[in-house]
């Protein structure tokens, strides 16, 4: 055993969506996980409003850094590095975190590590279950992403196996919750109703599971529409909508496809570890079905506790610490926020921005 004091002490900042997260880790040990969420401000809009999120990040950043330092009981001077989510995510929101991280690292004289949000979601599991097995298959599911990734080294090699071709799984939960008048975000409330419903009550479609469909890609748009139509037909007929059965049957359709494809990818690639991360990993049925199917296939399932699955700063710090431990190059002071940072780039080393940034500006009105 090495002395944990020798392991890198890293502060991580996450602002890719609506959570302002600041975490502190020492190697694979979690010391602090401070999160300020603007989710309540988005609730009445039924989804995350980028400008509302960006404003909230600016307000929350300094108090959240303070809170994390107190929680960890460390001094900023003792940090070995500052990590920050450089992308992917909402451009304006990312930029607030990147600006804070750069200023903090510069003022403290510490190296800066711009890291990938998706790789961070995988790496966070080190804080729960120790060093990541290499290789690891990862299923990331949230309101923003639905990806199946294979990593042999979380600091340098993350390969996309499959991803959603339309909506993220979490978005489907939000949409169905809205159709059922259950509010936002949809995940927890659907999970709650589904526990009292029959998952086999209604046979909703399983997207992209035909023999000719891509093996590891997902599609939730068709399911979303099918569920909404089913509910509207009931309402049009003047019948009561069986909310619990709809929630359970919809949820079953989502987690059935997710776990089936994840287990298949593990088998095909000969990988015996599956980690599940992202906000939807908090779903109780997803956890149960994944456990059942992994056991049957001889795969070890690793799912961090729910608070580490949703967006947080600890996951960014965890990946930053790994960057330090493996001597990866730090980022430069002109590090930019990249709303579509490819998953294949676990971090953004200094002066190697070689992919196209024009898309970022065209996709979203960045400076309005």
């Amino acid at each position: 055993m090495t002395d944990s004091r020798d392991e890198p002490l890293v502060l991580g900042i996450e602002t890719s969506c609506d959570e302002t997260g600041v975490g502190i880790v020492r190697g694979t040990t979690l010391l602090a996980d401070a999160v300020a969420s603007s989710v309540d401000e988005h609730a009445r809009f039924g989804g995350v409003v980028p400008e509302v999120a960006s404003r909230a990040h600016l307000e929350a950043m300094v108090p959240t850094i303070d809170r994390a330092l107190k929680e960890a009981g460390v001094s900023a001077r003792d940090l070995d590095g500052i990590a920050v989510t450089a992308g992917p995510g909402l451009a304006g929101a990312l930029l607030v975190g990147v600006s804070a991280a750069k200023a903090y690292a510069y003022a403290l004289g510490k190296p800066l590590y711009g890291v990938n949000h998706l790789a961070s979601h995988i790496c966070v599991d080190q804080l729960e279950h120790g060093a990541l097995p290499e290789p690891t298959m990862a299923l990331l599911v949230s309101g923003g992403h639905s990806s199946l990734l294979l990593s042999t080294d979380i600091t340098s090699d993350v390969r996309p196996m499959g991803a959603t071709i339309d909506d993220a799984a979490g978005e489907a939960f939000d949409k169905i919750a809205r159709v059922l008048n259950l509010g936002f975000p949809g995940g927890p409330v659907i999970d709650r109703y589904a526990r009292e419903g029959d998952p086999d009550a209604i046979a909703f479609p399983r997207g992209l599971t035909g023999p000719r469909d891509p093996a590891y890609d997902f599609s939730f748009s068709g399911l979303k529409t099918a569920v909404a139509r089913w509910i509207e037909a009931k309402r049009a007929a003047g019948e009561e909508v069986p909310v619990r059965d709809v929630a359970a049957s919809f949820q079953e359709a989502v987690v059935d496809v997710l776990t089936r494809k994840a287990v298949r990818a593990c088998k095909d690639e000969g990988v015996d570890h599956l980690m599940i991360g992202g906000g939807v990993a908090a779903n109780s049925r997803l956890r149960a079905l994944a456990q059942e199917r992994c056991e049957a296939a001889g795969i070890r399932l690793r799912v961090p506790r729910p608070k580490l699955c949703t967006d947080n700063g600890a996951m960014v710090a965890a990946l930053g610490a790994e960057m330090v431990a493996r001597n990866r190059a730090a980022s430069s002071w002109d590090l930019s926020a990249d709303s579509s940072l490819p998953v294949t780039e676990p971090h953004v080393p200094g002066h190697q921005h070689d992919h196209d940034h024009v898309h970022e500006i065209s996709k979203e009105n960045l400076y309005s």
Partner: protein
Amino acid sequence: MLLLALDTATPAVTVALHDGRDVIASSSQVDARRHGELLLPAIDRVLAEAGLSLDAVTGVVAGIGPGPYTGLRVGLMTAETFGLALGVPVHGVCTLDGLAYAADLQDPFVVATDARRKEVYWARYADSRTRVTDPAVDRPADIAEQVAGLPAVGAGALLYPDAFPQAHEPEHVSAAALARLAAERLAAGEELPAPRPLYLRRPDAQVPKNYKVVTPK
């Protein structure tokens, strides 16, 4: 005393150091889309030019806008985080006041910057040091009467000659002017505002219309 001043509320990314007597180093780059990339290297450059390190800074001055939000937040977040890390005060200065100060006029005039969407951020001044209206955001045609006959400075005035026929330089704010104004006000014992952004507009947000949304308890 060493003030680090910065402003990212206009297309200019501008940084200056003020030692209590005058500006000792400064940098201004105009690139409306790259505030995030340009600001920290500019600060690093200005400090190097002055032969100083950030530790020597005793206070930070940040333009609080009004200005396009994404760029504005880069400067404010940077200033506020410096304040946290260095344990020094962070002062806000209205970006329009910085432009007014740089205009160096003794008679009434208007400052207007580009607010995009065919609008300007603007305020009226009695002279370069005295603002007489709160910063506002409006369509140039809607305020033409209120600014009629007055000289005007800023990119917003230069952009809309129909409303601002007497528009002239400076076009963008400079941190050097911001620093001089802040130093003058601090020396006079004035309290400067907190570094909170002047947005002036509510966030754009579409409430989905199809379904009534209820927040779960």
